[in-house]
């Protein structure tokens, strides 16, 4: 349907509505809904909204069209009028969504203070303690333990990152754990010099 045909058809339906022709009006509203769905859907998808939201917006526009139909002058073209309403409703809809999103993710000051104060302090202390424990390990083992046990990387990724085999990473991890267990023993264990261990990894 070309723009002129659509203008002709919908304008005619709007005039029929004035005379009380419900069937013509209903047919036109359905066509308008289809066209709106097709043109607004992709736009909303682009800003991360789904089919559900686009259907909500289509309904909003139809209600607006119906509620404000007396502001359309039958002597004037219908499509520019509809376009202005669609545009207004789209902007209003996005504004509402933005506000809702802000309310949903907004952080009250108290929560914010909690985040920046105590838990951060604890986390800092914990990571400092981990560092202290790992200090007993040679550099190569420390790297692997940190990656797998602290940062939570997979054995495969670590192996790829260090350009070795998964098996070698596993063996090193085992050795490191044994050493850490030994280090946490109350009995004082003498640490051999680091570079010596680095040799037989």
């Amino acid at each position, binding site marked *: 349907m070309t723009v002129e045909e659509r203008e002709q058809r919908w304008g005619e339906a709007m005039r029929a509505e004035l*005379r*009380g022709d*419900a069937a013509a009006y209903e047919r036109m509203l359905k066509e308008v809904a289809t066209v709106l769905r097709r043109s607004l859907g992709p736009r909303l998808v682009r800003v991360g909204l789904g089919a559900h939201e686009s*259907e909500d917006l289509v*309904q909003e526009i139809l209600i607006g069209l119906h509620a404000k139909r007396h502001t359309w002058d039958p002597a004037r073209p219908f499509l520019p009028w509809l376009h202005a309403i669609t545009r*207004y409703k789209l902007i209003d809809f996005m504004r509402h969504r933005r506000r809702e999103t802000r309310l949903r993710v907004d952080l009250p000051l108290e929560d914010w203070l909690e985040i920046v104060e105590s838990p951060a302090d604890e986390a800092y202390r914990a990571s400092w303690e981990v560092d202290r424990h790992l200090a007993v390990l040679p550099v190569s083992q420390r790297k692997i333990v940190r990656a797998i046990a602290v940062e939570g990387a997979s054995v495969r990724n670590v192996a790829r990152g260090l350009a070795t085999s998964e098996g070698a990473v596993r063996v090193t991890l085992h050795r490191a754990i044994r050493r850490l267990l030994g280090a946490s023993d109350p009995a004082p264990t003498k640490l051999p010099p680091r570079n010596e261990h680095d040799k037989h990894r």
Partner: protein
Amino acid sequence: MTSTDDLIRSLASAAGTRRSASLRSALAVTGVASLVCALLLVFSVIGIRQDFAEMAVRMPFGFKLAYTGALAVGASVVVLYAATPGASATALYALSPAVILSALGVIFDPTAFPIMGRTDTAVASCVGAILFLSLPAMILIFVVMRKGAPTQPLFAGAVIGLLSASVGAMAYTLACKNDGTAFVAIWYGAACAIMAAIGAVVGHRVLRW
């Protein structure tokens, strides 16, 4: 899908039920009503000029009436434009007679009336009185505008402020003692600008639909 179809069916069942009178006639009635309100306020609160009969035939009064009249007519046209989606923006030219009149009033002022008025309080009382007199118009026209479909609520509110200020100023001409065209052009214009700003703020909040 189905809920939209239901919605369409219920909307269609209301086909042909005719709604309120056209916006144009509603605005005309409101304009007259708000001018009457403002005139009542002038008579009861401010009081018309002592030398009214003598003053009414001289040029400055004619200028005041022409200026506020041009503003009221122009702003009415623009209010209708703001209330109608997809209307032609040429409606904005309706304000040009008022703009031209005010420019002429400032440039070719034949009265030698001081721009800041004869007394210290002239400006404040003139602007304050116009703001006061335009309040009923503002409320009434906002009510009418809620029946329209303003797609730019901020702009629509500003134009409503302008129209109500011009109605208030028109009523104030009966009381205004400042017989200088430059004074009138500047300070009546300032009152209009203040009302337009207030209207924009209110419209942004009130005129959503």
